[in-house]
Each structure stands twice: as C-alpha cells, then as structure tokens.
C-alpha cells in the first residue's frame, strides 16, 4: 500500500489504521465514508467514482502534509476507491494517529473537508430512474465546503 492512494478494490480500513500507529501515538481516528442507500428520499442503487488518478494521489499527499504541519506529531494515511461501489461499501478511508486525541479528531475532519474541495474525484449516482454526476456547482476552489449531503 501507499500512504495516499487511489484504489480499485474494496478498502480494508484496518490496514490504514495499522499504518499510522506508532509507540508515541495515544489516539487513532479512522473515518470511513460509505455509499448510502437513501439521500433525501431518493434511493441510490450504486455509485460510480472516477478520478484523475496521478493528480488525486498527489493532492491526497498534499492534504496529508497540510495535516502534519497544522497538527505536529500526527501521521495520516488516506485512500479513495474508484469504479462501481455497492450500498454500504467504503468510498474513502482516513486514518490519523496523534499523541493526543483532540488532534486526531480535528485533523481527520480537516482531511475529509479538504478532499471534498481539492481532490479530482467525481461521483456518479445511479438511481432507479436515472444517473447524475454529482458536483457542487456553488463550490469555489479553496473555500471550506459545507456538508454537501450527497453522501455522508
């Protein structure tokens, strides 16, 4: 595995949690974003993700460097899956370790916000009666994003 990677196979989150653990870490936070069946009353059958893979891995690594600069002593690892994902499957995993728990929570949440702003990955929702590429048209580059509600 790479510490920051785009993958096509199902994600085993424990692998990323194990990667960030060190003797000086007292806390590990692991976030997994899953394909949700119901969003605002509309039933999703499955999702398809596409990425500009080399740039996506580069921007994930950049986010990791931002985290380690903002919360010294943290170590991070992030993976995002692309291709077709069924309900409940993991689209993204973020693992963060730090000596103290507060940093591990904050850095982890920072990472998912930044992913949603920066990383060239696109989600297509497939419903019973159609499909759509999801993208927040209101979102401007490098502005912190609100929860889109599209998934998690």
């Amino acid at each position, binding site marked *: 595995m790479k510490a920051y990677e785009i993958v096509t196979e199902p994600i085993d989150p424990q692998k990323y949690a194990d990667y960030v653990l060190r003797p000086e870490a007292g806390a590990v936070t692991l976030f997994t*974003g899953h394909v949700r069946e119901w969003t605002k009353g509309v039933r999703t059958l499955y999702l398809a*993700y*596409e*990425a*500009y893979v*080399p*740039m*996506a891995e*580069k921007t994930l690594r950049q986010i990791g460097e931002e985290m380690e600069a903002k919360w010294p002593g943290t170590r991070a690892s992030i993976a*995002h899956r692309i291709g077709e994902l069924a309900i409940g499957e993991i*689209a*993204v995993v973020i693992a963060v370790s730090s000596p103290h728990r507060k940093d591990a929570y904050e850095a982890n949440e920072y990472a*998912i916000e930044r*992913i*949603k*702003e*920066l*990383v*060239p*990955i*696109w*989600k*297509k929702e497939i419903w019973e009666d159609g499909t759509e*590429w*999801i*993208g*927040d*048209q209101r*979102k401007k*580059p490098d502005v912190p994003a609100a929860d*889109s509600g*599209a*998934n*998690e």
Partner: protein
Amino acid sequence: MITIFYFAGLREAAGVPQEQAELDGRTVGELLEWIGGKYPHLPLDAVRVAVNEEYALPEDVLRQGDTAALIPPVSGG
C-alpha cells in the same frame, strides 16, 4: 502540442476523454476560450484547470508537452 483531459460530466459532454491541440504559448484562460468555442454546450463556469497535475491560474502559460486537465466540481468522499 499540449494534451487536454476531460473528466466526468465534461468527458461525456465533449465525447472524448482527451485530445491534443496546438496551444503552446497560450494561457490557461485562452485554452478555456478555445474549448468553449469548440464545445459550446460544455458547462465551463465552475471548471478549474490543472496543468501537469497542479491547479493553474488563468494567466499561466502552456508549454510544449504540457497536460491540461479540465476539473469540473469535485465530489469525492
């Protein structure tokens, strides 16, 4: 020559995942004008451009061999 990548909805709307064009020496802003002229139906308002895998500014100049990727609003996570 530069290489242009299209992703997600833009790829489907343009009908091609990538193409090459003689835009060496032109700016990123001029690239977007060129694309808008060739594909008037492409929604380019919220699109960002990455040159060689880094987000670029409209005034950045394209050079021989560069890859320019059109990045519609992202929706990872």
